[in-house]
């Protein structure tokens, strides 16, 4: 046993460099991933949510919209993939909110670590959650009869695109989590932003079926570009333009919301 005062620590510099910050981030990512394992309720929700979406939409809308469940499944699955993952990002905000309420962030803020590391760690750790969501949606979709009609590589690229977009969206969620006073607040604010964003798009129905004013919104909605891109990559259709537009959206959302979230976090007292 060493003295209670402990071993000598390497003297860190006056400011922590990028490398130090990345090391902190990897530690905190490890923490988030460990936490996923201990929170089985969350994992269950992550898995059941896409299954519920798939069953519900395939069999409720299938006949009416596409004239058959199989045809509709081919159409909607890419949309549900987007939907499930985007909704899963809401969990990031919820977890941050709990971390702050539970005092863990006070601990982080009293440590000599990069100020952005706790947020980056939470976000990166959550990528595991999104991967679970993607895997379940695709897997269960296949069980229901969904078939990838492009190639495995193309489908893989589709999944990566969804994850890249989620990495941007979860900064929106992080910001909500930091601004809301309670977990309920996160749920409400989250719903107000996420529902129009996800359902006000071509995720579930083709844009042409909607009234003109709605089409205008749907067309500028990043979710529409993303869904179109994923559709193209999984079952065929235009790819280049929607993929580029989705990536631009992801970069844009990240560039606006990540610094904003870090700023709010640093200001938080």
């Amino acid at each position, binding site marked *: *046993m*060493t*003295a*209670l*005062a*402990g*071993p*000598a*620590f*390497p*003297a*860190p510099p*006056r*400011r*922590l460099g990028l490398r*130090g910050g990345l*090391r*902190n981030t990897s*530690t*905190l990512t*490890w*923490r988030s991933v*460990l*936490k996923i394992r*201990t*929170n089985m309720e969350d994992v269950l929700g992550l898995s059941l949510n896409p299954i519920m979406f798939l069953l519900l939409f395939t069999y409720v809308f299938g006949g009416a919209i596409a004239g058959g469940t199989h045809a509709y499944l081919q159409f909607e699955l890419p949309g549900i993939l987007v939907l499930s993952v985007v909704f899963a990002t809401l969990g990031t905000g919820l977890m941050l909110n709990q*971390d702050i309420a*539970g*005092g*863990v*962030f*006070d*601990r*982080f*803020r*009293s*440590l*000599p*670590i990069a100020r952005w590391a706790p947020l980056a760690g939470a976000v990166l750790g959550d990528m595991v959650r999104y991967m679970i969501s993607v895997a379940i949606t695709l897997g269960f979709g296949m069980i229901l009869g969904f078939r990838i009609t492009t190639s495995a590589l193309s489908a893989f690229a589709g999944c990566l695109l969804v994850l890249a977009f989620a990495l941007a969206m979860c900064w929106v969620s992080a910001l909500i989590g930091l601004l809301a006073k309670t977990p309920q607040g996160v749920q409400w604010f989250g719903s107000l932003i996420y529902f129009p964003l996800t359902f006000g798009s071509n995720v579930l129905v083709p844009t042409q079926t909607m009234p003109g004013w709605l089409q205008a919104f749907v067309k500028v909605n990043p979710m529409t570009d993303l869904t179109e891109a994923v559709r193209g990559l999984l079952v065929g259709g235009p790819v280049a333009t929607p993929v580029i537009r989705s990536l631009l959206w992801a970069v844009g959302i990240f560039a606006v919301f990540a610094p904003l979230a870090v700023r709010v976090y640093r200001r938080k*007292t």
Partner: protein
Amino acid sequence: MRYDAATPNAIEATGLVKRFGKTTALAGVDIVAGQGRVLGVLGPNGAGKTTAVRILATLLRPDGGQARVCGYDVVGDAHRVRQLIGLTGQYASVDEGLSGTNNLIMIGRLLGLDRRAARARAADLLGRFDLAAAAARPVKTYSGGMRRRLDLAASLVGSPRVLYLDEPTTGLDPRSRTDVWHMVRELVSDGVTVLLTTQYLDEADQLAHDILVIDRGTVIATGTPDELKARTGRQVLRISPSDPARLAEAAALVEAACGAKVTTDAEVGAVSASVASTALLPRIVRELDARGIELAEFTLRKPSLDEVFFALTGRPADGKDSGTRELEGSKP
């Protein structure tokens, strides 16, 4: 040592001001803690103790005044201050979803220890805080006291030179409490400076070299425990008649002699009074003797900090009248 040891005072704050909306939590507070000493910060609920600790721990920015820890400014040089301090806040700040071991490993890694060193430090601290058996369990299954001890352990992972303990023993059983006292003494013997807030005056009496009493955001007294006790200028006389039946009679007599109210404890058969001057004592003894009241006990002692506290704030130490102050202080 990880810092410039030339600074004589580990903590030096002057004129700290902090407002929350309409509430002024701190209205110009000076805090000084010498290197390797224990500063006890006392005050009723809502006095501003936690606010002061959070400013010194870089968690809050003061609205006025400045504070230095080992010579580094808590605002301008926050990153360096964070390398020197350990904090056990009033409410445990551990990760409920992780095990005790992983909580401490995480902090060790964040502080730059390698995997092996972080693991060893975690095991060492968990052993010291009697948590080895629960080390692998998620913290959400811990009892309140266990969580508290883990929080204490977490604040020590980084071998802080300055340690803030905000009511560290609240909610601990007597044995854990004594363990914490031992720990504080051990750290102090290693040269660590400790700032301790507490509701238990005996704790401050036991541990603190210096005491700072805050009330409503201002410092109302400072000094060593002995100086504070001497400050009220009064000592406490306590007598118990051999014959318990004569307690009331003795009480009346002492009250008349001191000219102040006495407290009678019928259960143990004792009368206590605060006496302004020891010159009164011979008179009291003579009168008791004249009435033939034999004594089983006759003691004179310095006032306890509880009594000092009461004299200084006009309120008992447990902050019974804090209800209204809490309301005053609640969110704007």
